[in-house]
């Protein structure tokens, strides 16, 4: 354990934490406890866990669990600070499994928002049920013939009306277009 006041932020941390996210992390720590220690170097600088540190301060924790990393050089730490954040972005949620799990959490009378998803996101996840009716379409083999007739723009209106009538009488559709 280390006192939060003794921990130093990594000077060039490129990851930005929004106040909304800090609130979510705070809620998570209050619900689940501080389960993921903050990684620090030998001088007490945070390598991984800035969001958790901000959240700990936000809810007034005086001490947080830490793990001191001593096997990496300063150069490697520079790259690891980015990698640790970037590699999380590469995964994704299997939405249907997620839906099953959120459903179970709701059934267990737990607040689904402690998972970190906001109310509107949970609504969307739970709303992924079947919406469409299944129907059968019988397909008749080739009942339509397409004919393209090219006419000059100056074609007589009466002639076009007659053509439309003829096509309609044959059960067809006359579509107009131009180029």
């Amino acid at each position, binding site marked *: 354990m280390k006192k939060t006041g003794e921990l130093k932020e990594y000077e060039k941390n490129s990851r930005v934490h929004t106040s909304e996210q800090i609130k979510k992390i705070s809620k998570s720590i209050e619900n689940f406890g501080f389960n993921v220690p903050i990684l620090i170097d030998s001088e007490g600088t945070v390598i991984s866990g800035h969001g958790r540190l901000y959240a700990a301060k936000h809810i007034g924790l005086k001490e947080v669990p830490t793990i001191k990393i001593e096997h990496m050089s300063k150069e490697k730490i520079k790259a690891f600070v980015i990698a640790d954040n970037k590699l999380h972005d590469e995964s*994704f949620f299997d939405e*249907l499994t997620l839906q099953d799990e959120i459903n179970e959490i709701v059934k267990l009378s737990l607040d689904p928002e402690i998972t970190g998803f906001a109310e509107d996101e949970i609504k969307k996840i739970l709303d992924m049920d079947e919406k469409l009716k*299944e*129907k059968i*379409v019988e*397909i008749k083999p080739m009942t339509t013939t*397409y004919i*393209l007739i090219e006419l000059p723009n100056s074609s007589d209106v009466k002639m076009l009306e007659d053509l439309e009538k003829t096509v309609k009488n044959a059960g067809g559709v006359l579509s107009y277009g131009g180029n």
Partner: protein
Amino acid sequence: MAGTKTDNHYTADKVALRAGNIPDKKEIRVLDCFGGRGVIWRAVARKTGKNIIRTAIDMRSDIDYVHLHGDNTKVIKSIDLKQFDVIDLDAYGVPADIIKTVQGSDFSGVVFVTMIQTMFGAIPRIIQKDLKMPDSVKKIPSLVAKDGWNIFLNWLGYVGVKRIKIREKNRKRYFCYTKEA
């Protein structure tokens, strides 16, 4: 939704269509021609309790599981389709060329197709050719645009599909049909 990368608003319908129409066997061999991450077939396996053995084709470089790597229109012509029970074309575009290959093969089983019908401005050449549409149709897409779905159904009839089961919403079409050898 945070952390998700696909627009799967109708995923549950895609899963239900598949779960309700796969062959009645304990073990189902699926050729997934538009590979992706396999979310749908994992859900089908969970829902049906069947053993789904999925072989994916994909040409993206970020796929990290064993798959057939390459252009699906070419790969599908070079493998024995008889060994599969299901061919999945979760395509979004109109996979006319693959459907035609499947219809001309000795594959026997169920074909699932997902497509968003945006094509009929640009009718796939293969459909245009099969339905003997004149080349000049390309110049005037509005002539056929509003009849696009019927043109596609006509073409399905031309390649030997007799009936489809479909779920649809606006221009999104999720359907399947049974192909006999």
